[in-house]
């Protein structure tokens, strides 16, 4: 280990880390390549330089940056791609960060992620979304095609699960040429957007559900009986809530509900 200066160090490992390097620490370098404290504020300062005999590069890098988000990992992939071979292998690098399998596919996904707008990346990092949840993006040739979806998500900041759902439905609608942008321009509520997107994505089951819902509206139910047409997984059915105070009321209401022969009025025979 020796001392060198900021200006003397190579800076191509700079991946714009989001956590600032502690003020009271000098930047570190390895074989005169800066590994931390990249910002200009360190100009003219001394740098603690480690050699390959002192410490393995990866170990030093990981000690300086024990946690990295996907944007940072993506910038590392892009920035180091040409020169990384001299320093470490991607496989070793990623296993240090907890990714043990299929480096090739991970690198590909990080490259894709890095090409999304920064505001979207910030949403992903904030909501602690995992890269595997963004796999829908692999189906696109060019991320620019769906910037309007990224922007909507970044601006409206839906919850983790809502955002992932909107992204997947939005991309699928886009790939099916079903204009998801119209929906995103018309609604700001994530629930409503999901509802409208699902209607477009699943026209057959949505229209069947709608027919049943409309038919239900025509039924005159006994008082204090409420109903809802519901989807539960791969089946749909009628939820009936009955409020009653005693056995007699219960029997009366059940009898009246029975008399409505409600399932005969629902169109459950031919959805196609």
């Amino acid at each position, binding site marked *: 280990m020796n001392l060198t200066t900021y200006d003397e160090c190579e800076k191509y490992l700079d991946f714009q880390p989001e956590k600032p390097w502690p003020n009271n620490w000098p930047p570190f370098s390895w074989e005169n390549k800066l590994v931390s404290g990249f910002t200009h504020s360190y100009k003219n300062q001394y740098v603690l330089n480690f050699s390959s005999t002192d410490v393995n590069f990866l170990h030093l890098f990981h000690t300086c940056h024990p946690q990295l988000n996907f944007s940072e990992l993506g910038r590392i992939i892009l920035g180091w791609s040409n020169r990384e071979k001299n320093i470490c292998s991607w496989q070793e690098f990623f296993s240090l960060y907890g990714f043990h*399998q299929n480096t090739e*596919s991970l690198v590909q996904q990080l490259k894709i992620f890095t090409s999304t707008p920064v505001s979207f990346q910030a949403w992903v990092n904030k909501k602690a979304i995992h890269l595997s949840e963004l796999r829908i993006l692999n*189906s696109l040739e060019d991320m620019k095609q769906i910037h309007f979806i990224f922007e909507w998500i970044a601006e409206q900041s839906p919850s983790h699960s809502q955002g992932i759902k909107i992204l997947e439905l939005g991309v699928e609608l886009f790939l099916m040429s079903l204009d998801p942008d119209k929906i995103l321009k018309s609604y700001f509520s994530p629930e409503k957007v999901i509802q409208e997107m699902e209607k477009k994505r699943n026209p057959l089951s949505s229209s*069947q559900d709608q027919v049943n819902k409309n038919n239900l509206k025509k039924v005159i139910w006994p008082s204090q009986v409420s109903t809802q047409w519901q989807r539960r997984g791969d089946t749909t059915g009628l939820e009936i809530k009955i409020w009653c105070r005693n056995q007699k009321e219960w029997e009366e209401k059940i009898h009246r509900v029975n008399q409505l022969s409600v399932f005969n009025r629902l169109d459950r025979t031919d*959805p*196609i």
Partner: protein
Amino acid sequence: MTNQPLITQFQNIYIEEKSLDSEPAQKAFQIFPKNHIHIIKDKSDLKTLSNMSADQFNQSKKNLLLCSFKGKFFKRCPGARPGLICCNYFVLNLGQHCEMDCSYCYLQSLINFPFVTIYTNIEDALKELSGIASEMKDHKLRIGTGEITDSLSLDDITLYSTHLLNYFKQHPHWTLEFKTKSANIKNFVHKEHCGNIIVSWSLNPQYIIEKEEHGTASLNERLNAARLCRDKGFPVAFHLDPVIYHKEWKENYSNMIQKITSLFKPEEVSHISLGALRFQPEQRHIMRERFGMKSLVTKGEYFKSKDGKLRYDSQLRQQMFQFIFSQFIPNRYRKNDTLQNLSLPLAESTETTGKRKLSRYKNSPPKWNLFLCMENKENWLATTNQLPSKIEKTNNLFDLKPVRAFSQLSNETMKNA
């Protein structure tokens, strides 16, 4: 669309050193150019790949690996899941992965080893079977080889059909099923057998084959191969699985069933299973990446079912099953298309196949042995009005005695180990 010749399907052939003398390796040397063949020390030198990308999966279909297998070849069918009615079926895995390319193939979410693999030590598999045979000699086992690979498409390299045919001659009370989407029957069809090898085809209308079952044999090729097997006395079976919803589904499935019923008599077909498209949720990504959103499979409407798989709406499945069941009954016997008022028509049991004098349904409808594959109780009831264990001719398929005996045997082996 027909099967491509093997030589054009594989770019790289890897052969493990200790498999070099095996029959499949010798065949590979005859079929493939030398510069495509690589000898490797041990298959453990090759990397597994979880969550393969589309490119990696595409490439995996071009890599052929011949190696020995150390694990258990014989297993219970992985289809058995809580909430589903599963038939009593065992699988003998003599390889894994497949060179054909169906858009819906479940191997896309299962395989984590990027090679079409052929196990070269079939003699160990047969030894394992013999061990089981001595313990379970009274049970009528149904065994298939087409669970994680196609039973016959690579038979020109493996020649396993012949070995298995010979082995099963010694176990006439067991049934072996070759399940395929190829028409590759030439290695065994002319050989002597004892009637316990069922040759079965997964069938779909030609329209679906062209759009979704890439590199497989055409419907006509599959049916012609089935006819030849039938003519040579092999029981044949069909799997209308996966049934795929599309705009013209009624017309296309109806035409296909018409073809089947005009070429075969119910007595000649051991069974016909029916199952709607289903897949693990994670699989949607790789299917979308590999086949885009124009595929009938990727653009389908799916919902999570009780077993965690994505399936069509249950109502739609019922409707498709009822329609398809109804198409096996000639018009004059149909009360209506939805079959609500018909009880399930069944074929003669497998034991009598071929022996009974065929009468062309004079007073009663033809009795095809149809059943649903991996479906819930509700859809069984809606389609057939009965549960399989109560249906006279399918109840032996759903008899769980052999399954229980096998579980007991496995547990005991584990304990002793």
